[in-house]
């Protein structure tokens, strides 16, 4: 939220290594941490690297990775969305309700995506044009979605979902479909943000709003567009989330927004705005499931999971601060 634009645009360093570290340092750090965990835990218990466990770890948090793509864009712009968890819960319930009412599956998959786009676009308008801070809007939206969902569903689970609806359980070459979604969407978003004008504009606005305005970018429009896009990713994440099992628990998943924001942050969306990629957030999402799986494998009481995550966030951000100092 608070970011000082003056620090974002810095002269490029001449060293190629420093350049790479500046561009992908955080992504590399997450990847290395992931490798350390995988190596250490699989030395202790080789089952950790069994094909089934790899599948579970990579696929298990795919919906978080997909949602974190949109969140990364939002944070890059200097905003935040604390309603994403509630939104995913609501959209998954919409998908499930349509599915049990007998609509064709493509309708059940498409409608939540459209509703997600619509809701986040409204949030974007309130943020960009009415100038209400995103954290305030989304705090309000959390209450509305949470209360609304329970009022409508009365908390009754959605079961008897038709098998052809359960897209997250489809497999291609033995690999669950969420993995494909995660990889394709991450690469597509990453490339788009680096090369497409609209995507590059996100960095420009996140780095310095006024500078962006002088080169002809309209930050308000861009903000609404990015929120809408974020809603699309939320919709896809919700469909993947809701189709993992045979029932949909029609409540808002607890603390999901924190996990998604944390994935974006650990993934290196920085910190001062205007920098960071979606590759990092996807790696971070996989890293989370690797850690929580590792806790079970190492017999570590799950009580410490949260403490581990906290230390990781702080370590990440401190590392980022130190890196910035080295470059200077």
């Amino acid at each position, binding site marked *: 939220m608070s970011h000082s634009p003056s620090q974002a645009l810095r002269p490029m360093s001449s060293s190629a290594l420093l350049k790479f570290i500046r561009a992908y340092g955080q992504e590399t750090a997450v990847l290395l941490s992931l490798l350390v965990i995988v190596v250490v835990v699989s030395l202790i218990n080789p089952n950790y690297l069994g094909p089934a466990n790899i599948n579970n770890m990579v696929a298990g948090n795919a919906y978080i990775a997909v949602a974190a793509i949109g969140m990364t864009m939002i944070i890059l712009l200097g905003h935040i969305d604390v309603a994403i968890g509630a939104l995913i819960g609501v959209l998954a319930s919409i998908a499930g309700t349509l599915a049990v009412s007998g609509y064709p599956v493509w309708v059940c998959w498409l409608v939540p995506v459209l509703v997600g786009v619509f809701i986040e676009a409204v949030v974007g308008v309130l943020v960009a044009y009415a100038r209400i801070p995103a954290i305030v809007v989304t705090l309000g939206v959390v209450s509305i979605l949470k209360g609304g969902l329970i009022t409508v569903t009365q908390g009754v689970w959605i079961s008897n979902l038709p098998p052809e609806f359960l897209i997250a359980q489809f497999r291609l070459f033995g690999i669950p479909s969420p993995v494909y979604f995660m990889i394709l969407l991450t690469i597509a978003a990453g490339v788009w943000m680096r090369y497409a004008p609209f995507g590059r504009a996100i960095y420009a606005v996140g780095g310095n709003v006024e500078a962006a305005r002088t080169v002809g970018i309209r930050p308000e429009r861009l903000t609404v567009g990015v929120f809408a896009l974020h809603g699309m990713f939320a919709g896809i994440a919700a469909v993947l989330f809701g189709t993992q099992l045979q029932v949909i628990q029609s409540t808002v998943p607890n603390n999901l927004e924190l996990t998604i924001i944390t994935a974006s942050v650990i993934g290196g969306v920085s910190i001062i705005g205007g920098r960071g990629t979606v590759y990092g957030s996807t790696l971070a999402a996989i890293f989370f499931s690797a850690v929580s799986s590792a806790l079970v494998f190492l017999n570590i009481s799950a009580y410490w999971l949260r403490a581990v995550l*906290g230390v*990781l*966030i702080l370590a990440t951000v401190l590392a980022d601060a130190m890196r910035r100092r080295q470059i200077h």
Partner: protein
Amino acid sequence: MLSRYVFRHETILALLLVLALALSANLSDRFFTVDNLLNQGRMLTEVGIIAIAMTFVIITGGIDLSVGSILGLSAITLGVVWKTLGVPLPLAMVVAVLAGAVCGAVNGVIIIKSRMPPMIATLGTLALYRGLAEGISQARSVRGYPEWFFVLGQGEFFGVPTQLWVFGLLVVVAAIILGYMTFGRVTYAVGANETAARFSGMNVDRAKLLIYTASGSMAALAAVIFVSRVSTTRSDMGMGIEMDAISAVVLGGTSIFGGRGTMIGTLLGILLIQTMKNGLTLAGVKGDGTIIVIGSILILTILISNLVNRKRD
């Protein structure tokens, strides 16, 4: 001159509060009883105490997401220090508040030294402190506090709930510091333009450190009151309370970008939320309906306030 007062955010809020009170009284004859109103005071104290410090934090342009976790960790500290380590309870209460102060100071140091946005830093400590609370307690609750301890959370003093005195005193002190003392001016200056504040010779880092430490201490004080009110200690205490406190502060007109906000606004924000919660329940609206209304009011109030103020500019 007049319009300056009429269009102030606090005025809009006060009108809303009057409206909410009138509506609640109209919907249920049990709302406007001394008993009920004092009891509501009892229940808003913990969020209220946290919101006081949060107002300072947000005026500096920061945010403290870790207060709920500090509440949990302080509560566990209280329980463990008293029960497991056998320290006398009054001393354990002091230790618990100190633990909260240390947590807050750690937040402050991280934010000042690493220059990372407070939201990210406190997101990290949110996870860390809650994790420590769960790890230390192994998720077991501590019970069996002596009867005198409940005075704080369940007792009365001159007919008014004990913790409401504490809350009232803190609000007054905080309002004086923020409105009339140098420290208050520094707080606003940091939020309005940190660089300018530094150049004009203000000790920005010291102010931030003090404010985050105070935020942690207030969360710990809320923890002690909470434990006394519910007579048990659990590691999941205070989960999500940061959102309630932030909502109240923001509803009270404090700008999340910093530099603007008042203690009276925060107080009105807290009262408005509590009135709606209580009034709607008494009127027969269920909990899920109530949170929809509160969410909508939060967005609408800020929206109206923004529009009104922009018209005038």
